[in-house]
């Protein structure tokens, strides 16, 4: 049989098993005698073995078999798992990942390292012989990394529609009720449990309110194990303490099934259950294509709107208005389709934290909160590196050695916490540690040494800590010793800016550091101001533009090698956009600066950008720029206007930071 057509399914399924396996292993290390978890690990290995075997990937199946054997011993004997065993299985997991990579690239599989196979076999043998002698569970030493599940408890409204051909809906609903009870507490149910139990319920729609510390994904997983379900809707219930269920407002997924269910059934016994199809798999590249196309539509709509304003035809205006509505709706829905749980982002982190802590002889407790928050898949992918980076920094440099912590009167075990929270249409990720914090003096000294701050210049303490995000800051050696911060943080910042977000840091000596990444939930539509600078057209995020001011040549003064514009008796750093694109950032005296765009944060402008003309206001979808372009200048991204012209979008934060380094803030 030709198995190649199953390859992509094999890759995605195995990948999912590996991700789950990794999470289970790290949890298992925390609770080495958790029988359920041991069984889970066994189950994943068993599935991987089966799938790899049937695909003919012998190397993979063999390794999975060896590891499965080891876990089988634990399962049978009820013996706690030892840290070295977790290490071996994690090594095996890394091998599996390598193998998947090779399979993806159609390359032959490498041989599994012999010491890995031999080590696993030895552990298994030892366990088998011990199992014969001592039936009592062994006690494993407590590992160094403790992972706590999120403690937050939430209320969910769950609406289930039982399929029309279920002959005993009361029994079906009672079974669902009983199983949901295993996840938490059901505070309300419609129909009442007594009516289900008494067999009085004959309807097909049930609603529950469940208070649980598990996520929606887990509820979904449980519900997937029931037959005879037509649709399911799960929704976080803000009003958990309400005395009754709300009106059935939460829309269950429209079940195209119901229409199909009434059709005569095909005669063959093995006919597929058509009524159960409520979702389909879609290739992610196809989704990305939709998103890109919607981005183009957004730009095109904005262009047409601009045209219609100039042409002033009622019919055109009406058309544009209707187009606007459709594009908005489409944009919202397309973005929704790409939403995935933040756990896709956080899944790997406990393992990474564990590995670094172990290698550095540190003890950490890593807590993740808010894994249920849904994010755009593109964001999850883009945030992967920055979050890993921040976590690495936190473990490696933020958290002190156990000895140093004890000496400072702190518990030996450091706390690292990742909190993901949704705030309307934005999401915030806060990674905090209770380590030694950032030393501003060292940061300042380093910045001066690297020429990022002119000698003798005074900066506020908060400004000093922000220097760690400057591009030049990370290059020097020894930077990592400044409490470790500054390692490639400019890259983290650039990524965030490229996503329309921002990163900020708070740190207190001796108390710890906290990084906040804040960004739009999806790739957002950005309002931009288009400005002309010489032959160039540039875009500025409208939210960061405070005012636009006409500038006369006599208002421009030279100040210590850079320029300032005098506005209302005060000097403001001036960055000429032509100069920025073509050379030194200076505005030559003879150049035609006519407009100054004042940008900054809050109410106070930090920098004036010199331009020739303001040419309009548009809606665009931000596209992140690659590393190459990022190195060319302070650009947040690029976009293509509706008329096809490409435009660079300026990174206002970086412009401000550059000007802090190059000229004085207050004169």
């Amino acid at each position, binding site marked *: 049989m030709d198995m190649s057509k199953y390859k992509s399914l094999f890759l995605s399924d195995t990948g999912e098993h590996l991700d789950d396996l990794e999470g289970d292993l790290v949890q298992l290390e925390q609770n080495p005698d958790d029988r*359920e978890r041991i*069984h*889970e690990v066994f189950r994943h290995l068993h599935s991987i073995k*089966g799938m790899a075997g049937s695909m003919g990937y012998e190397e993979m199946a063999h390794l999975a078999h060896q590891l499965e054997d080891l876990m089988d011993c634990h399962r049978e004997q009820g013996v706690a798992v030892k840290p070295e065993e977790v290490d071996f299985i994690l090594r095996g997991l890394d091998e599996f990942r390598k193998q998947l990579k090779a399979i993806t690239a159609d390359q032959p599989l490498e041989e599994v390292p012999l010491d890995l196979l031999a080590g696993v076999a030895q552990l298994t043998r030892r366990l088998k012989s011990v199992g014969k002698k001592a039936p009592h569970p062994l006690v494993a030493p407590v590992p160094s990394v403790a992972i706590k599940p999120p403690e937050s408890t939430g209320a969910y409204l769950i609406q289930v529609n039982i399929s029309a051909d279920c*002959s*005993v809906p*009361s*029994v079906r609903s*009672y*079974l669902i009720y*009983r*199983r949901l009870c295993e996840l938490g507490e059901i505070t309300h149910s419609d129909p009442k449990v007594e009516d289900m*139990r008494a*067999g009085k319920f004959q309807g097909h729609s049930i609603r529950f309110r469940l208070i649980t510390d598990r996520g929606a994904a887990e509820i979904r997983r*449980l519900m*997937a*194990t*029931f*037959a005879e379900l037509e649709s399911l809707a799960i929704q976080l219930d803000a009003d958990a303490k309400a005395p009754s269920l709300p009106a059935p407002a939460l829309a269950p997924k429209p079940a195209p099934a119901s229409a199909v269910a009434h059709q005569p059934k095909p005669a063959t*016994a*093995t*006919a597929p*259950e058509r009524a159960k199809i409520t979702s389909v798999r879609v290739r992610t590249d196809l989704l990305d294509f939709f998103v890109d196309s919607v981005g183009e539509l957004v730009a095109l709509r904005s262009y047409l709107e601009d045209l219609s304003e100039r042409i002033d035809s009622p019919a055109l205006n009406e058309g544009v208005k209707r187009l606007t509505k459709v594009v908005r709706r489409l944009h919202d829905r397309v973005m929704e389709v790409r939403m995935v749980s933040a756990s896709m982002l956080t899944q790997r982190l406990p393992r990474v934290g564990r590995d670094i802590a172990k290698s550095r002889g540190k003890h950490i407790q890593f807590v993740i909160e808010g894994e249920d928050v849904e994010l755009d898949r593109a964001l999850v992918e883009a945030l992967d590196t920055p979050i890993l980076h921040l976590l690495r920094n936190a473990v490696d440099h933020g958290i002190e050695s156990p000895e140093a912590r004890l000496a400072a009167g702190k518990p030996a075990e450091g706390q690292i916490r990742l909190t993901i929270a949704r705030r309307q249409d934005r999401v915030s990720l806060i990674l905090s540690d209770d380590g030694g914090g950032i030393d501003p003096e060292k940061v300042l000294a380093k910045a001066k040494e690297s020429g990022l701050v002119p000698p003798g210049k005074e900066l506020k303490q908060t400004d000093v800590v922000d220097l760690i995000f400057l591009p030049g800051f990370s290059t020097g050696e020894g930077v990592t010793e400044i409490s470790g911060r500054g390692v490639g943080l400019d890259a983290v910042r650039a990524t965030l800016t490229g996503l329309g977000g921002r990163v900020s840091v708070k740190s207190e000596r001796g108390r710890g550091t906290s990084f906040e990444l804040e960004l739009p939930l999806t790739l957002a539509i950005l309002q931009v101001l288009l400005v002309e600078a010489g032959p160039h057209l540039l875009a500025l995020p409208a939210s960061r533009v405070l005012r636009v001011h006409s500038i006369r040549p006599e208002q421009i003064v030279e100040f210590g090698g850079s320029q300032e514009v005098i506005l209302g008796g005060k000097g403001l750093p001036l960055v000429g956009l032509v100069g920025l694109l073509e050379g030194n950032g200076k505005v030559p005296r003879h150049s035609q600066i006519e407009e100054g765009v004042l940008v900054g944060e809050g109410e106070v402008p930090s920098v004036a950008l010199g331009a020739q003309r303001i040419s309009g206001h548009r809606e665009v979808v931000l596209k992140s720029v690659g590393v190459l372009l990022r190195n060319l200048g302070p650009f947040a991204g690029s976009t293509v206007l509706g008329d096809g012209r490409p435009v660079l979008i300026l990174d206002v934060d970086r412009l401000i930071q550059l000007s802090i380094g190059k000229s004085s803030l207050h004169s």
Partner: protein
Amino acid sequence: MATRVLIVDDAVFMRNTLKEIFTSSEYEIAGEAANGVEAVEKYRDVAPEVTTMDIVMPFKNGIEATREILKQDSSATIIICSALGQESLVMEAIEAGATDFIVKPFKAENVIQVVKKSLASRR
């Protein structure tokens, strides 16, 4: 690897009907039992992955047998075979810990679906 099934029913006809349904290569009949007492013993001997359990049987009924099997193996997957009009008995079996249920007359695709989904819920 084939899923191993234990079929418990006092009626030979019903056992054969179920056997017929599990003929595909995905399943293997690990054993049969004609009453609750036999079911508990057979379960111990053959350790099946799935057990289909009739309710009304001589010596020991399916609910009792379900309870005892789960005492032996809390992860056992037991699917109750019931008939229309036996709702309250199925409720009792669910309270005893049964994984799911099917209603006579059996439709092959329903039985297979319930078995597959139940196995997915096994932890």
